[in-house]
């Protein structure tokens, strides 16, 4: 291997700075052994949108010529290491550009490595990660996804830990000493971060994944039209505005079949249909028009369209009618309303297991009160664990507090 190609799959805004630090860190680390490298983001992405999957790449090579050889395609088509910074990305990613759904391991070369930050088990993750026609290694760095904002950065050492893990995965390109030296010299580096990198190097967990393992779902895809097949005038035909849900009742808007956006989601609303007072607020306020009106005039959040912003939970006037729950605890996009209609008792059990999970209902992103950031960091360092905050203080935090 004369070149190491890595992709860093991250969530827009929340992890934009984190991904850029990792990509730069890879190049600087390789430079310590005299190698050449380049770090860049996929230009067609839109990393300035909350949660939207995006990619950075880092390529390092033994010589300038080998680097150029691998840069001839601006966006690499194969990666030796794929790094996913949030385990809810395991369900696949759909970027801002229209590509259909891409399995998280799509670019990973045979016998390459998929490195993720996750607190889930290998087994749970493999329910989400699509099957691949070649074996690869799944490596886990035990951590909750590190989310921050566009202008702020969470100094929770995730960048240093990922680099430490890479020293274990690709030691011939990134030796641990080189990584540690690079981290120390980075503008964001420190002795503490070097220590975190070393620990992760020792602790990173790996598991060989066979071709038989993984999510068997065929990811949705489509052929891009030829120029003469496209409508002229930069126009797109409208879909039907809506169809009734059934028997002339309900209201289901038609949606773009080519761009679904749901991989933007890190949390999803879980709805208690028995509590719904049919006030329409979630339906009206949803910025992605993801709610379908059911024949009984309740609202079902369509999981192919929901981006997980949480506005519905915030505007719902009924306590615990809508609860945002981490995406990791769901296996599919099935309709909650259909589940509820089929068997209300079973739905109640299912719902209780989701909204009763305090870790799963902790906010994945965004700060809800002044000082939350400091508090989270303090806890994560003191306990060696992770701070979990839930709800909106002054609104519903009390009911969801740990």
């Amino acid at each position: 291997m004369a070149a190491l190609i890595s992709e860093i799959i991250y969530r827009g805004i929340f992890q934009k700075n984190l991904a850029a630090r990792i990509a730069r860190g890879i190049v600087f680390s390789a430079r310590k052994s005299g190698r050449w490298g380049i770090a860049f983001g996929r230009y067609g992405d839109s990393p300035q949108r909350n949660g939207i999957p995006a990619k950075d790449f880092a390529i390092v090579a033994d010589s300038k010529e080998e680097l150029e050889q691998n840069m001839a395609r601006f966006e690499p088509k194969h990666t030796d290491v794929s790094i996913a910074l949030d385990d809810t990305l395991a369900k696949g990613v759909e970027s801002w550009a229209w590509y259909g759904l891409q399995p998280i391991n799509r670019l990973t070369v045979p016998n390459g490595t998929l490195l993720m930050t996750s607190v889930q088990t290998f087994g749970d993750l493999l329910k989400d990660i699509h099957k691949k026609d070649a074996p690869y290694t799944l490596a886990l760095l035990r951590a909750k996804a590190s989310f921050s904002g566009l202008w702020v950065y969470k100094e929770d050492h995730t960048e240093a830990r990922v680099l430490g893990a890479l020293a274990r995965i690709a030691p011939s390109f990134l030796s641990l000493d080189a990584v540690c030296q690079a981290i120390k010299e980075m503008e964001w580096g420190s002795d503490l971060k070097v220590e975190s990198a070393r620990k992760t190097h020792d602790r990173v967990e790996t598991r060989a994944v066979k071709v038989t393992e993984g999510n068997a779902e065929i990811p949705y895809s489509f052929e891009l039209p030829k120029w003469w097949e496209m409508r002229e005038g930069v126009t797109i035909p409208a879909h039907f505005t809506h169809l009734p849900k059934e028997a002339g009742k309900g209201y289901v808007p038609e949606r773009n079949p080519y761009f679904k956006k749901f991989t933007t989601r890190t949390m999803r609303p879980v709805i208690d249909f028995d509590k719904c007072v049919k006030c329409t607020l979630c339906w009206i306020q949803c910025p992605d028009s993801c709610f379908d009106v059911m024949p009984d005039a309740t609202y079902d959040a369509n999981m192919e369209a929901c981006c997980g912003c949480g506005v519905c939970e915030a505007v719902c006037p009924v306590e615990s009618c809508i609860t945002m729950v981490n995406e990791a605890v769901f296996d599919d996009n099935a309709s909650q309303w259909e589940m509820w209609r089929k068997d209300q008792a079973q739905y109640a059990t299912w719902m209780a297991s989701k909204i009763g999970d305090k870790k799963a209902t902790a906010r994945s992103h965004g700060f809800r009160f002044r000082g939350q950031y400091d508090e989270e960091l303090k806890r994560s360092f003191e306990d060696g664990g992770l701070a979990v905050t839930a709800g909106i203080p002054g609104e519903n935090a009390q009911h969801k507090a740990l």
Partner: protein
Amino acid sequence: MAVATKAAPAAADETELLISGSEAVAEALVLADLDVVTAYPIRPYDTVMQAIAKKIANGQLVAEYIVAEGEHSQFEIVKHASTVGARVFCGSSGVGWMYAMECLVVTPPLRVPMVALVGNRALDDPGAFGVEHNDALVVRDLGWMLCWVDSSQEALDTTLIAYRVAEDRRVLLPLAISADGGFLTHSQALTLVPTKEKVDRFLPRYDRGDLLLHPDNPITVAPQANEDWVIEIRRQNNEAMGRATTVLEEAYADFRRVFGRGPENPWFEEYMTDDAEVVLVGMGTISLPIKVAIREMRAKGKKVGMVRLRWFRPFPTDRLVAALSKARAIGVIDRNYSFGSPFASGVVANEIRAALYNAERRPPLLSFICGLGGREVVLEDVYKATDMCQAAAKAGKSDTKTHWLGVRE
């Protein structure tokens, strides 16, 4: 000897008016039953805006007349009106046209058949009123059809043809008619105005078809798209511009059939070129001094002719090459500049050089820049250019210098 300019046989039903180029355009707009027009004053374009206002005030035309707060809005408004099916007109001059630039850029990809009058004016600074062609030429690469007219009659006729070509479903591209500021926009000439009945036979209703923005045809126009879509959209525009060539020739042929006049060759006017050794090329009202100078020189036995280019986009490459490669020397007189371009020539000279590159016979080509900022092009300028071209014809090769004529030195 072919003399292209024949006296137009006045059909009995045509009315003769003494009007300027701008007023001639306004007459055509009434005949075309314009729907929406926007206005913002800048000289010399403002003459057409005043003429249309008068038509509406007099009840000769029923149209929405919207005075915008600047050229940017002026062109945006008609862009939107056109997408919902209105026949629109707009226009500007010099830096006003520049201020509308963002809208000028988006109209071709959105396939908006906006017809605009550019009263050619020098770009600032200095804030001169006089003609230069650089304003209209700024959009030459963007998918705008561009033509230059040199008389009130041609301004009127070309406006009718413009709607027919621009609004054709095979084309749907914006079209700018350029009229030299002062020389054409402010000079009144005897002009034949056809009847509405004949115009209706020539010019069909504007029909955007599947691109119409209407509740019965719900579409999204101009969504954001990235690298997976853009080059296909450009390719579509290239195709539309290619089809414009055919549509334009059809329109001129039909114009002649309906009105009994108009040029056989839509693309350029040839004046005394049949046996010409030297052919001078220009656009716009520069044709007048060139024609007069040619007659004077012909009387002294010099074989000189002129090609006045009407259509710059689409560029009539093959026909122009066929016409020009017969000459022993070509002299291109540009009323524009292109600083830092090959040989520091004007825009037309370099386009013709490029067109001739693959021609079997490439006569020497000399490049001249003349008449900038509205300075008059005088007979002496034309004589001087012709003499240099004759010398090049004798030597059998071009000099690569660009010659500035009529400049104090």
